[in-house]
């Protein structure tokens, strides 16, 4: 499962190894993406700022999810899918095949539309990625699990039943568990692909509050069909249409005074 392998701990030495403008976390340049002959992303360039939430909006098939799949190179396991251009994280192009996938996964975590807990205990779900990448003593492991669950705002709800099956949790709790699983390996970037589309409004609000909290420590990119959600949780919004990046700017500007006609039409509900 991809969302577990996503991230691993990064040492301070590694973090300082590439001096890059601290304000840009993901520097996408001239990115093209193809599903076979289908040109899904067209010459996309955008600098995603660090320590903030960037929302990706646009109609179905516009390339939103493709962009996330490209940032963490999930596409690589499928034949006929390829990307051109560059996505630099800390100055290094992650699309370069020489860039180790395991390093990319530990830096970039991902959470999907539907919660994807493993059919095992809550504890094992969070411990899985940790033990995959590093060796911990029992107490260290417990600390890291608690830390991740606390950061995901789930600890208080599950602390007395860590050994129970994760499948017994509600949808919203399962989604926060997936986030805890991602956070456990301390990534820098978290990709969220419509993380609340399967959740009820209260669970959605909790997750949005969590995103708001996590923003202080992580760079978050969220794909959402819900424009109100984009407006609520993000500082920057990018609007995609037919594989092109139409407009990228401050969320407050995009939702009050967009520049491009296509953005205006989309966010005001005048599309097609």
């Amino acid at each position, binding site marked *: 499962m991809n969302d577990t392998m996503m991230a691993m701990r990064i040492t301070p030495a590694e973090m300082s190894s590439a001096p890059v403008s601290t304000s840009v976390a993901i520097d996408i340049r001239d990115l093209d993406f193809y599903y076979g002959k289908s040109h899904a992303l067209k010459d996309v360039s955008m600098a995603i700022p660090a320590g903030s939430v960037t929302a990706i909006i646009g109609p179905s098939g516009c390339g939103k999810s493709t962009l996330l799949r490209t940032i963490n190179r999930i596409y690589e396991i499928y034949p006929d899918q390829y990307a051109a251009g560059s996505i630099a994280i800390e100055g290094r192009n992650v699309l370069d095949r020489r860039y180790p996938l395991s390093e990319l996964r530990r830096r970039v975590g991902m959470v999907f539309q539907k919660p994807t807990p493993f059919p095992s205990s809550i504890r094992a779900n969070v411990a899985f990625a940790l033990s995959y990448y590093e060796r911990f003593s029992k107490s260290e492991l417990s600390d890291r699990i608690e830390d991740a669950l606390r950061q995901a705002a789930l600890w208080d709800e599950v602390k007395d039943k860590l050994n129970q099956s994760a499948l017994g949790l509600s949808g919203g709790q399962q989604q926060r568990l997936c986030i805890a699983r991602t956070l456990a390996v301390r990534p820098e970037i978290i990709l969220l692909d419509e993380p609340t589309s399967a959740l009820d409004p209260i669970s959605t609000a909790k997750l949005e509050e969590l995103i708001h909290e996590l923003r202080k420590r992580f760079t978050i990119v969220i794909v959402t069909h819900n424009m109100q959600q984009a407006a609520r949780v993000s500082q920057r919004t990018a609007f995609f249409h037919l594989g092109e990046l139409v407009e990228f700017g401050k969320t407050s500007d995009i*939702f*009050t005074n967009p520049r491009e*006609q296509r953005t205006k039409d989309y966010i*005001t509900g005048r599309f097609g």
Partner: protein
Amino acid sequence: MQQSREHTLKAFDEDLDRLRALISQMGGLAEHAIGEAMRCLVQRDVEGAQRVVTDDKKLDVLEVETERRAVQLIALRAPMASDLRDVVAALKISGVVERIGDYAKNIAKRVPQLDNVGKIEPLSLLPEMARIATGMVHDVLDAFLERDAQAAVRVCERDDAVDDFYDSIFRALLTHMMENPQSIGPSAHLLFVAKNLERVGDHATNIAEMVYYAATGEHMTDRPGKSGS
């Protein structure tokens, strides 16, 4: 500026159109009220003036209705970008138009005080001043309906003329009062009328700024003809 397409959800357009129609209706009433108040003032039509005072309630009712619809629209439709700016502008404009109605009422209330008063020269200037001020109100509300930012700028530019009228009427009335101390009472009433009309011009300018923002998303900074009242 231009609203190129209709909303996918037609009922959204209907709601917005209804809101705009309300503003239009309010503007028509306010404009008519100022015109009528001035006619009654010049013709000393006390009964007509009373009607202007009573009719002002219609504007109050429409303002409440506009507010109700705007709040409902925000709650139910979650308007964005130009739609949101339009709704906020409509909400603010309705308040301003209601104030313009109050000025008309205020002018009309002075008509009985001026009954049986002889000729006061500056009175002849007031209808022209009123014509310019109500013209501004008329045109700025048209600009709102058309989402025409440039028309809004042109309305602002006309505010200088209203202010000039006010200055000259002020001077003329002052002179008139000094020369005819017995007319100080009625002259003071006319001074308030002139001030009210000057405020109508200012309010039209305020509406123009809202129209400009709604249409462009930018603020009309350093607008020409800025009133110094």
